[in-house]
């Protein structure tokens, strides 16, 4: 039994072993596509990829024909002319996983004739290609990417990319200016503090102060500009938040210190102001990186609607861009392809997978004259569709707008610490004013020094850091456990969630082959399973994965001419044509709801499809219910299927046959009742409902649109991540509260002392730094208590869990 495929890492079936040769060594591979990919990569002299990569590659997909991307009207939207022999295109590359992928893509493209440069950004999964359009065309470049095993999606314009890059670079520059400034200013400050003890030449003291001012000026005027800009924005909107007090504090400390330097005051605080700006910018930079990484997922929307369509006129068909279509024209859609437009079916009836829009897991039959919608998949074909609505008028676009609206209507979760810090700083500013006025009445020479001492010792650093540091730590801890936090508000909101609404299909369940009730017409059970798994070896359909799982450990025969069509898979074995798929595909007059394997002589075996509860779902729901979180299932599926899953998982509340609108309405009614609701789903059909919950959680395997609207994404399919996320979110909130209490107590003690003029500058600075350090140290408590937060995973994942008959 050979092990995993050298290229893609998937298990290799038995039968005739396929070997790919690199140099003198042979490596086992799982399919012809992967062998071609390995040998082609080696042929380019890029075999080092296999040594450098951290994650195994995508299964190599057969290179599609990308010729239609050369159509002038389509190319104009995706290719930008830069000059006589230079054009630029930005391509989103699906399947890019690690730095080695980036390296491979960059080299493979750069080696093509006519490519000037190929710049890969692994962070955002994009390649910017500058090429000579007279020597190489975009389709050839896309085919190159496809042959490497990636799926290329040309993007329209990269203005957003440029914007993001600019934002990131500006933030980095500000951070470094503030950091350098803080280090320098601190050195002069140490000399000044030492001078305060041991005596210092007034001339040297003045010199050090001027130097401090020289260093602090760019920090305040350049690095701290976002705070001033934010304060102005807040002031215009009549809304007081973090930026206003921060800007005021920076401005006041800096102005006071400049006055003290020029006219000879008691103290200067250039070090404090630089350190303050640096720490705040550091927090913001980390947040910016996390936010940008998450925002890229939203671009996945591009992938949902096909960009090209086959237009038919008088029997002849040509491939054109979807935006060129007009209502009344006729397009042809092949089996397994996605409808590019909303329209009316003509010519022949066909089965349509509308799970995208309705959440219905079973395909539905559309008769001639029925409406079909963009984004749904034609299971039979080819069919002809008369165009009714294109682009923004389609149901899919309306769905996308619904997601946006639902997300926009979400009440903004006011951040606990932000509000507390804003209130606090307002009070500190008031106190500073009072102190200054009081001292002005008693002893005017000490008024400014005391007022600034109050501002410094009460430096809102600790408050400003309380939430971001805990949040950063929590996001980091969760990321290591496979839980991606897309929206920081979501994590905070999730800590207070008392009800979780699960979608069923694809979230709590996955399709599986019910081996126990497998019916064999001819031959042995193992033989039939092995044949079926061998046929499905290259397919990515969930049923194919289920069949491969069921046949795990069996030696798979080698099957020739495997072809995947909309209805199923065809292949040749032992001189017979094998057909595997829905009964009406595999047999002449088949019916039923199972997968059927047949050859020329008729049925060989029938594999009943069941819905199997995902591994870990029961444990996750038990843990959530034990923690006092109400769980319920809301699904678009049939009542009896939903009920079976609900019973198997011990969930008392469930709803079936819920449309996206009904889901949204249900969530709204729950929230009106006062529940804090989280919605867990996987697909696009959940997206509106997900957007309508307080917290949206998606499984990483689900469609990308839902991820764009969700706050938390579980990588992989482990529902235990929900329990993890809840534990971490709660401990994060606890740490934030503890930090705020601690900071409050410290300030309550320190501010009166400073106001009385009892705190020397060095002590004020130490107090400020120490309070910030304690706040950061506190955050390390987050994520320490994993064992308590989550029950141990089941001992053996392969043990069959509660099975739920689907049909």
């Amino acid at each position, binding site marked *: 039994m050979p092990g995993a495929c050298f290229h893609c890492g998937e298990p290799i079936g038995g039968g005739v072993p396929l070997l790919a040769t690199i140099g003198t060594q042979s490596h086992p591979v799982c399919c012809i596509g992967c062998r071609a990919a390995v040998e082609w990569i080696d042929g380019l002299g890029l075999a080092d990829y296999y040594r450098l990569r951290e994650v195994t590659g995508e299964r190599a997909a057969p290179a599609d024909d990308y010729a239609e991307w050369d159509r002038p009207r389509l190319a104009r939207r995706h290719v930008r002319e830069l000059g006589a022999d230079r054009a630029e295109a930005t391509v989103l590359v699906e399947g890019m996983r*690690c*730095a080695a992928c*980036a*390296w491979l893509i960059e080299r493979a493209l*750069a080696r093509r004739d006519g490519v000037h440069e190929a710049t890969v950004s692994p962070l955002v999964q994009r390649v910017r290609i500058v090429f000579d359009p007279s020597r190489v065309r975009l389709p050839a470049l896309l085919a190159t990417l496809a042959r490497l095993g990636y799926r290329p999606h040309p993007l329209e314009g990269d203005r957003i990319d440029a914007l993001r890059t600019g934002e*990131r*670079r500006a933030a*980095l520059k500000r951070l470094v*200016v503030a950091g350098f400034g803080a280090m320098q200013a601190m050195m002069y400050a140490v000399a000044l503090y030492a001078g305060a003890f041991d005596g210092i*030449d007034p001339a040297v003291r003045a010199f050090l102060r001027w130097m401090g001012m020289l260093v602090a000026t760019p920090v305040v005027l350049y690095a701290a500009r976002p705070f001033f800009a934010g304060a102005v924005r807040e002031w215009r909107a009549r809304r007081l938040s973090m930026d206003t007090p921060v800007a005021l504090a920076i401005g006041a400390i800096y102005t006071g210190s400049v006055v003290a330097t020029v006219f000879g005051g008691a103290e200067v605080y250039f070090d404090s102001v630089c350190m303050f700006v640096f720490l705040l910018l550091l927090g913001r930079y980390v947040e910016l990186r996390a936010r940008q990484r998450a925002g890229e997922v939203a671009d996945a929307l591009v992938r949902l609607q096909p960009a090209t369509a086959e237009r038919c006129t008088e029997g002849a068909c040509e491939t054109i861009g979807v935006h060129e279509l007009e209502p009344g024209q006729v397009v042809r859609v092949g089996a397994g392809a996605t409808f590019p437009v909303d329209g009316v079916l003509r010519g022949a009836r066909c089965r349509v997978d509308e799970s995208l829009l309705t959440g219905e897991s079973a395909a539905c039959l559309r008769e001639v004259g029925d409406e079909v919608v963009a984004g749904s998949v034609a299971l039979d074909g080819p069919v002809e569709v008369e165009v009714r609505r294109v682009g923004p008028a389609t149901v899919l676009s309306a769905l996308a707008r619904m997601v946006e609206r639902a997300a926009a209507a979400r009440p903004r979760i006011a951040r606990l610490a932000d509000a507390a810090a804003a209130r606090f700083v307002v009070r500190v500013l008031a106190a500073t004013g009072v102190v200054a006025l009081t001292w002005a009445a008693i002893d005017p020479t000490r008024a400014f020094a005391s007022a600034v001492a109050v501002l410094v010792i009460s430096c809102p650093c600790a408050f400003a850091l309380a939430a971001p540091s805990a949040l950063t730590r929590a996001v980091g801890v969760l990321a290591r456990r496979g839980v991606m936090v897309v929206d920081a508000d979501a994590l905070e909101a999730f800590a207070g969630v008392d009800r979780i609404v699960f979608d069923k299909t694809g979230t709590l369940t996955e399709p599986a082959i019910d081996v126990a009730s497998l019916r064999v017409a001819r031959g042995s059970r193992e033989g039939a399973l092995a044949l079926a798994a061998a046929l499905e070896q290259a397919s990515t359909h969930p049923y194919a994965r289920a069949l491969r799982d069921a046949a795990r450990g069996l030696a798979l025969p080698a099957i020739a001419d495997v072809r995947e069509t909309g209805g199923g898979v065809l292949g040749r074995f032992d001189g017979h044509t094998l057909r595997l798929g829905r009964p009406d595909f595999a047999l002449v007059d088949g019916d039923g709801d199972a997968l059927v394997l047949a050859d020329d002589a008729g049925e060989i075996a029938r594999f009943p499809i069941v819905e199997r509860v995902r591994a870990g779902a029961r444990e996750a729901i038990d843990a959530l219910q034990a923690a006092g979180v109400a769980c319920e299932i809301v699904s678009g599926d049939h009542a009896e299927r939903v009920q079976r899953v609900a019973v198997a998982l011990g969930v008392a509340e469930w709803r079936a046959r819920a449309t996206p609108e009904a889901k949204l309405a249900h969530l709204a009614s729950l929230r009106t009742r006062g529940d804090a609701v989280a919605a867990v789903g996987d697909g696009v059909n959940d997206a509106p409902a997900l957007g309508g919950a307080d917290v949206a959680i998606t499984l990483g395997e689900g469609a990308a649109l839902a991820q764009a609207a969700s706050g938390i994404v579980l990588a992989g399919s482990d529902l235990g991540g929900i329990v993890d996320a809840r534990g971490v979110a709660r401990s994060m909130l606890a740490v934030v509260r503890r930090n705020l209490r601690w900071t409050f107590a410290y300030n309550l003690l320190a501010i009166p002392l400073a106001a009385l003029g009892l705190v020397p500058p060095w002590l004020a600075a130490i107090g400020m730094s120490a309070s910030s350090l304690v706040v950061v140290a506190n955050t390390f408590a987050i994520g320490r208590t994993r064992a308590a937060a989550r029950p141990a995973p089941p001992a053996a994942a392969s043990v069959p869990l509660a099975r739920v008959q689907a049909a």
Partner: protein
Amino acid sequence: MNIILALIPVSLVLLGVGVAAFFWAVDDAQYDDLDTPALAPLVDDDATRTDEPARR
């Protein structure tokens, strides 16, 4: 002690050079991708490769 009157301005000039160099590096996309270039030295390059000048 008067030496610090000369040395501190010198250190500030050096600081300015450092910041300028960093700004150049950021604008030259040196910080946009921190993962891929780490692999470059591990690769045995053929001497004939000429794609570097094109990547300016």
